[in-house]
């Protein structure tokens, strides 16, 4: 199965790129996931091949009766081409664990169900039998929760979940038990980082039962001032409480970020503006970019767009650059693997091409007429 076979799925994890949600310049995306397990089978890490196969079979049989998964594509990891698997990971629809051990590939009967009629996907036979999730643009926790709640109702009517009267929905890891809910919001917080207030904010998060991670979730580093903020506990509160609490805190953090930006512009306007235009300049003309460097430069440019210092450049373009300049995406566009520094060259070329057509217009370019004309 190649990438083209799963491409027809509309949205396909990219709907959020359009930056249509609330505060889309600061909050890139909202994700809500639920962990569920089926009765009568060992959990993911302890499941044998026949357990996993039985779980996948059971799920596949029931899909036609689940309206939100009508016409869903079942992408079995071992049957996917290697690059297609990595594409799923880069779009946050499969976990890195699902790629399997290096050299051995993914485990048999691990799969991702890709919703065709709604922006939902379900990882099958990951750490838990089912991990259903949805991804929305901007801050849209309630909508995301309500959609995933519906999918859970539909699936739960068909599949016998492992459920305990006291502990709730049972999960492989006790840190997910109860609601099995993880709601997370991907935030861009350069103002707080530059004004060195971020430490306090992150400290505050841990005091109110929230946690933060890097772009790719658990275990990933924070790059480009992108923080994924999510609930830490899953038991003892209702799903609505967890989601509302997160939303309240995130709104507060947005406010802090905005205040920090006001301070930046007040006390360090020239430095800030210079940083933003330098980042733009590097992106526009660099011949080689590592993904990490790109993320750091995109952070500067994103701040510029948000502060309306880079007219003509859209948040959508920045989201697109972030997703499509990941290694597997570049290889997919090139139609071959890009070993060594080739990837960095392709990344820089891609960014230049997009910015040439969708890039910012400098006020100086408009007024003085200097620049490109000198070449002629």
């Amino acid at each position, binding site marked *: 199965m190649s990438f083209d076979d799963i491409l027809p799925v509309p949205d396909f994890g990219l709907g959020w790129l359009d930056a249509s949600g609330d505060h889309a310049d600061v909050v890139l995306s909202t994700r809500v996931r639920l962990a569920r397990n089926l009765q009568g089978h060992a959990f993911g890490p302890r499941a044998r091949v026949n357990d996993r196969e039985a779980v996948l079979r059971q799920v596949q049989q029931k899909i036609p009766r689940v309206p939100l998964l009508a016409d869903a594509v079942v992408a079995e990891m071992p049957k996917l081409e290697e690059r297609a698997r990595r594409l799923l990971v880069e779009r946050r629809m499969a976990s890195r664990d699902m790629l399997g051990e290096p050299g051995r590939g993914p485990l048999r009967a691990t799969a991702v169900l890709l919703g065709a009629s709604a922006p939902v996907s379900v990882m099958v036979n990951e750490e838990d039998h089912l991990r259903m999730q949805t991804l929305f643009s901007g801050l849209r926790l309630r909508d995301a929760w309500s959609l995933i709640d519906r999918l859970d109702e539909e699936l739960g009517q068909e599949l016998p979940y492992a459920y305990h009267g006291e502990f709730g929905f049972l999960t492989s890891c006790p840190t997910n038990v109860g609601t099995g809910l993880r709601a997370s919001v991907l935030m861009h917080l350069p103002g707080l980082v530059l004004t060195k207030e971020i430490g*306090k904010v992150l400290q505050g998060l841990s005091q109110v039962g929230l946690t933060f991670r890097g772009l790719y979730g658990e275990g990933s580093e924070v790059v480009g001032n992108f923080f994924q903020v999510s609930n830490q506990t899953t038991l003892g509160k209702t799903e609505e409480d967890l989601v509302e609490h997160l939303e309240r805190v995130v709104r507060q953090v947005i406010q802090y970020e905005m205040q920090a930006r006001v301070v930046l512009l007040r006390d360090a306007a020239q430095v800030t503006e210079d940083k933003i235009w330098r980042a733009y300049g590097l992106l526009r003309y660099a011949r080689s970019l590592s993904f990490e460097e790109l993320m750091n430069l995109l952070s500067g440019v994103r701040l510029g767009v948000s502060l309306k210092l880079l007219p003509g450049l859209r948040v959508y373009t920045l989201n697109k650059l972030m997703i499509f300049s990941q290694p597997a995406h570049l290889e997919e566009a090139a139609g071959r693997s890009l070993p060594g520094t080739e990837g960095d060259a392709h990344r820089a070329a891609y960014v230049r091409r997009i910015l040439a057509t969708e890039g910012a217009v400098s006020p100086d370019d408009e007024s003085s007429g200097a620049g490109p004309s000198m070449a002629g």
Partner: protein
Amino acid sequence: MDETPRPPEQGSGEPSEAPRRCEACGEEEAVVRLTRIVNDEMVTMHLCDACAREKGVEGPAEAPSAPLTDFLAQMGDAPAPRGPAASPDEACPFCGLTFADFREVGRLGCPQCYVTFESYLRGLLRRVHGSTGHVGKVYLPPDPSASELEKRLEALRRKLERAVEMEDFERAAEIRDEIRALEPQEQRP
């Protein structure tokens, strides 16, 4: 960020080494080494879990590699873990996972494990989540019993009240429909 949370020091289990006290509260055993860059100088502090959290450090409990394993290891080292500990050989009758396995990997083997290690888990869950009781969605299995149905209805009524409170009337209407669909015929007006 100028803060680098580190996992507990290696070799802290050596018998010759006395357990280090937390430098903030001076009471609990230090389990986190916090290294910070302050004015271009590296400052290292040894902290207990609680003080580390107060300082905003994601303690070993959240270390990316095997978060719960570290947490469980710590609990094992602590003088008196809350809740009775199961014997290391005690095994789940369904999947065969032993208590020692669980301590090592931090993952349970199957739904039955929650029953096998129930009393121990209750203590663990209270420490991890601050609670042991699920108050969220009540699951309604494909062929529900009368009591399962009643529990589910109760939860839905709570959800309805809340939606009305939040003035989310669209959601309230959906929940009301769900309740109507589940209520026994004779209760309907």
